[in-house]
């Protein structure tokens, strides 16, 4: 038996879904698209529950609504559980009356009943039941009340003998039908709902400040700066320092202990440089991602995110992004992976995917040392200007990519701009905790394994020669051999065939910081970052770089596909394999193509 959860956005559907299914949930994605599909089993019953994307009516407008509509019309299910926000019932019942005409069994769940008293709304349930002729449950998903009654109602109503009445479908899209339907809903509400007192104006007060012409943008940037600072500077730093200490200590411990019992060198290296380093690189992202999940979750539940949309949509819609996309971009200046993950807050799928693909083009903090190293050496006093030019270039690339993705690939036409501004509410700590915990585990489960395996692979390629001899110089390693074989790919960017540059760029796949570390190791320098500039000197391993190739090489590292953590985040957010592969290919091609063009232009100029 199967039931579906249908209702408007913002009516507490996900909370109810979580309560009904507990931990028996599975999150996948709807076939062919990037929208997540939540299915679960209702506790203690053998009933499958599917959480369908929020809809306002049975006339699908957006991508997500088309999914719900398609499912309701074409798939097998035995009960429609229609959730309605009881504090906003005049609009919610519109969908309810349409669902009732479909022909399948429907029950209505009035959610957020705990708020009715404070809003001075009184609903005569019996009269409503008479009018609609179906079972109605009163529930507060956030408080967990009314659930037992709901479970009983589900059990008694589920019926697999009813079929969809497909003839009525055209009626849903006729204008006069819609107006008549609302008149009907109005009549029902008049007889069943009473407003005892006027609605409180707390929301209006907060919005007056938060959306004030002068204060809105400063308040936004203060919140953003706060989130950024707390996540990356404070938590990130504290955690990074303790993590580094743990890593150094455990590496030393293992080295000493295993050397004593004469374990092979390569096994010691595997454990230290491979496993521990790999685990360390995964864990190093933990603090900032936790804070990103926490703060974006909090802001979304409390309702502030909708206000961000309200402020910035006009500006960003012009290039096919949502106002909320601004947040991933700002977070992306610190860490691309954080930025990509925060795109969860963008509800419009097409805006969201565009954001996911374009966020990595903004230089993250790990790419900054690459910019500094090359620009300081080659452009001396003008290095700041050149460095800024990369940021300007990144914004141009983001805008152009967004326009390409929207106009050419997705072929989006001008869409109607209309959305609901939810009321402010204070998130329940328990729910926030569960939500963040689930997201962290999800991310590290999939991404963690990928990152870990990738680190091991690179360790292997660097530590062994092609004869599988351990402990060779980097120029004899398998990676260097690989670098030589593919150095032709980088030749159009830097003007020469160099395995050193190829290897360094490849190591950037693990983490962009590793590009510089790799260049230092190849040059035989220690990791203290003091003499790094020497690699470009006449006797250095990278003496073939000039201004043009330096700029182009930096451009390649900045604008090609991001590090593996960010790529894992992309995979997780895009969900659809085909689109994910296309996105990464797009980034690779753009990074390569752009730097080739740059090199060709710059090497002919005064540069």
């Amino acid at each position, binding site marked *: 038996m199967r039931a579906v959860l249908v209702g408007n956005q913002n009516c507490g559907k996900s909370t109810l879904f979580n309560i009904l299914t507990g931990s028996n949930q599975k999150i996948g994605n709807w076939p062919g698209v990037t929208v997540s599909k939540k299915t679960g089993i209702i506790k203690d019953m053998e009933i499958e529950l599917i959480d369908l994307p929020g809809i*306002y*009516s049975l*006339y699908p*407008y957006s991508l997500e609504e088309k999914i719900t509509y398609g499912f309701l019309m074409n798939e097998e299910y035995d009960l429609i559980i229609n959730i309605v926000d009881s*504090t*906003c*019932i*005049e*609009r919610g019942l*519109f969908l309810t009356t349409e669902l009732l005409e479909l022909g399948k069994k429907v029950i209505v769940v009035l959610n957020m009943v705990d708020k009715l008293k404070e809003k001075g709304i009184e609903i005569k349930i019996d009269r409503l039941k008479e009018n609609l002729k179906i079972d109605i449950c009163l529930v507060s998903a956030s408080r967990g009340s009314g659930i037992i009654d709901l479970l009983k109602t589900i059990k008694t109503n589920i019926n697999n003998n009813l079929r969809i009445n497909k003839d009525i479908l055209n009626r849903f*899209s006729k*204008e006069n039908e*819609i*107006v008549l339907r*609302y*008149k009907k809903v109005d009549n029902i509400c008049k007889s069943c709902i009473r407003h005892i007192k006027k609605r409180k104006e707390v*929301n*209006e007060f907060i*919005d007056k400040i938060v*959306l*004030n*012409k002068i204060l*809105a*943008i400063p308040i936004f940037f203060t919140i953003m700066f706060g989130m950024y600072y707390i996540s990356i500077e404070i938590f990130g730093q504290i955690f990074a320092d303790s993590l580094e200490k743990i890593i150094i200590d455990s590496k030393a411990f293992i080295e000493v202990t295993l050397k004593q019992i004469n374990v092979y060198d390569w096994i010691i290296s595997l454990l230290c440089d491979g496993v521990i380093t790999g685990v360390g690189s995964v864990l190093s992202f933990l603090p900032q991602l936790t804070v990103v999940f926490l703060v974006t979750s909090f802001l979304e539940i409390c309702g502030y995110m909708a206000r961000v*949309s*309200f*402020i910035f*949509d*006009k*500006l960003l819609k012009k290039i096919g992004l949502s106002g909320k996309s601004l947040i991933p971009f700002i977070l992306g200046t610190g860490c691309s992976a954080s930025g990509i993950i925060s795109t969860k807050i963008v509800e419009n799928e097409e805006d969201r995917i565009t954001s996911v693909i374009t966020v990595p083009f903004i230089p993250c903090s790990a790419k900054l040392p690459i910019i500094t190293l090359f620009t300081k050496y080659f452009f001396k006093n003008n290095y700041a200007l050149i460095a800024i030019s990369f940021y300007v270039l990144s914004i141009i690339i983001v805008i152009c990519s967004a326009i390409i993705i929207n106009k050419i690939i997705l072929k989006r036409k001008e869409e*109607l*701009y*209309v*959305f*609901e*501004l*939810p*009321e402010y509410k204070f998130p329940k700590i328990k729910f926030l905790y569960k939500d963040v915990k689930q997201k962290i585990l999800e991310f590290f489960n999939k991404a963690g394994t990928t990152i870990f395996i990738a680190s091991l692979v690179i360790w292997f390629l660097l530590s062994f020669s092609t004869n599988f001899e351990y402990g060779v110089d980097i120029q004899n390693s398998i990676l260097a051999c690989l670098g030589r074989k593919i150095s032709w790919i980088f030749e159009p960017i830097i003007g020469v065939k160099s395995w050193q540059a190829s290897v360094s760029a490849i190591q950037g796949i693990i983490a962009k910081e590793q590009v510089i570390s790799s260049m230092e190791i190849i040059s035989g320098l220690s990791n203290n970052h003091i003499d790094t500039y020497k690699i470009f000197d006449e006797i250095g391993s990278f003496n073939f770089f000039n201004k043009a190739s330096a700029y182009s090489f930096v451009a390649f590292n900045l604008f090609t596909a991001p590090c593996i953590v960010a790529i894992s985040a992309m995979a997780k957010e895009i969900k659809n394999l085909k689109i994910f592969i296309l996105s990464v290919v797009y980034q690779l091609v753009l990074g390569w193509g752009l730097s080739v063009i740059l090199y060709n232009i710059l090497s002919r100029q005064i540069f």
Partner: protein
Amino acid sequence: MRLSELKLNTYAIILFINIPNLKSRIRILEMGLTPGTIIKKTKKAPFGDPIGLTLRGYELCISKKETSYILVEVIK
């Protein structure tokens, strides 16, 4: 008058929805902006667009362009 011309914090009743695009028109109606509905213009974004309205117990944001196609009459 057009909804776009309505002053902030005034109540009005919807007379007519004149949006040229059929899909948009249907959508607007489905969100509850039907002739005869009482609305209140509550907010305007810092850049002037979009605007916020309260109706049927909730708050709706809509772009200024669409509001120029909606005819309303001010009420007390």
